[in-house]
């Protein structure tokens, strides 16, 4: 009888212990879930350069790095340049990564805060546009382009369209009237396409970003001697990170610091792979510019009648 009692007592205490363990596990499990849920989620809108896939591949490691550094769960959102302002206005993303003209548009229309600017190429966080012709093609100076076929980059490209268009206007050449014809290449890799278009004679002159010329020379795709640079635009800021004006100032400071601390050796784990952040993003580093550094772009946009100053 006493043995039965003992067994009964033991099984009761075992049951109680098991219940306690289950309760503890659930509590820890749920608190773990709650912890994950409590981590703030924010979206970063990345301007698409060539394709969504390429944009995500470039910036997924950088996004992971920023999440690790700030404790905020950042999610990359690839955004078409033409849709960028509309989607930002709708609140689809609070942080932005786009070209310097987009920064000016979002700054003027929505009070975007400047975070940090990308460094890449000879001029660091800045670059220039150039008007190029094929060497030996008979075009040796800017005035020779009157009546010729010209190819520009996409319309919202600061150094593939805006700066060259402005340069031509300032040099007394109206692209709408003084050229035989001008076009913008379709699809992705527009800047490379227009450089090749001049090299292989499809167009006489092109508005080429210096950064793309630099990159193509470094990669051995073209030679410096293939082209004549007829004119070069002023050096202006390149791609830039921004934050919506209502973003927590402490978080803004944290993100800026994280970007400035990036070195070529900084690496993160993405999908089981250790990836170098800057190399993946095609960036040499980041710089802190001031809003006034973007004033030359503002002046260009006013002269060319482009957003955010376009008047109809």
């Amino acid at each position, binding site marked *: 009888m006493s043995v039965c009692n003992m067994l009964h007592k033991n099984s009761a205490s075992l049951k109680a212990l098991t219940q306690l363990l289950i309760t503890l596990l659930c509590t820890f499990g749920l608190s773990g879930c709650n912890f994950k849920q409590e981590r703030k989620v924010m979206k970063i809108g990345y301007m698409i350069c060539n394709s969504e896939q390429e944009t995500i591949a470039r910036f997924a490691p950088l996004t992971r790095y920023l999440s690790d550094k700030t404790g905020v769960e950042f999610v990359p959102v690839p955004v078409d340049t033409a849709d960028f302002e509309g989607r930002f206005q709708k609140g689809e993303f609070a942080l932005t990564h786009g070209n310097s003209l987009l920064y000016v548009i979002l700054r003027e229309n929505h009070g975007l805060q400047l975070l940090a600017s990308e460094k890449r190429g*000879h001029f660091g966080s800045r670059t220039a546009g150039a008007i190029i012709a094929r060497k030996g093609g008979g075009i040796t100076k800017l005035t020779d382009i009157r009546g010729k076929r010209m190819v520009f980059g996409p319309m919202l490209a600061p150094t593939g369209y805006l700066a060259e268009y402005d340069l031509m206007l300032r040099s007394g050449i109206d692209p709408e009237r003084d050229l035989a014809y001008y076009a913008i290449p379709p699809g992705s890799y527009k800047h490379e396409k227009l450089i090749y278009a001049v090299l292989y004679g499809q167009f006489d002159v092109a508005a080429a970003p210096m950064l793309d010329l630099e990159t193509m020379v470094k990669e051995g795709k073209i030679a410096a001697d293939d082209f004549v640079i007829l004119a070069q635009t002023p050096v202006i800021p390149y791609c830039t990170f921004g934050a919506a004006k209502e973003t927590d100032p402490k978080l803004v400071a944290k993100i800026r610091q994280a970007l400035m601390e990036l070195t070529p050796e900084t690496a993160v784990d993405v999908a089981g792979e250790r990836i170098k952040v800057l190399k993946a993003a095609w960036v040499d580093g980041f710089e802190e510019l001031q809003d006034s550094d973007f004033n030359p772009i503002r002046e260009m946009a006013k002269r060319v009648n482009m957003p955010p100053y376009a008047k109809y």
Partner: protein
Amino acid sequence: MKIDKFDKLLGLLLASVLIALVLVLWQGSDRQAGTAKAVADRVMERELTYQARVALLQKLYGPVDELRRKGELQTALLKLDEVSRQYPGEAHGHVLQAEILHEMGVLEEALASYVAGIRLNGEYIDRKSPLSRREAISRLVTEGERDIVSRAKANPANRTLATALTNINYLKSRLAGGCE
């Protein structure tokens, strides 16, 4: 005076010591001549290597210099990229890039390029070297101090301006004779 065996032995020993001394002195002078010759050879070798290096740099970077002389600075930078594909770690490339960027008015990047070049090869700051760029660097440092120091003071939290300032200070210390 009688000369005994002992005296003969002493004489023989003395003669041996004298002969040994003469031999040692003769060998010493020979060795000195050899050392002097070796030093002369090394200096000659160093000079030849140096001349060859300067000639090679002139040949490699000649087209870049030519474009610079013609005022085609942007094309010169592209040409420099081409050469740098073959010789990526060459200090001369950084120094030329610094000079071109300085001409284009891109001060912060010019400072960074000079720093990169001089860290690789201190000859560019050496007054006596035919590769010396001392005057150009001094000019850039003066311009940089005028332009960047005031901006850095006005924006003390700006890390980019702080880096430019660090580069100015590095070049100033090298100009003053400081080592790496």
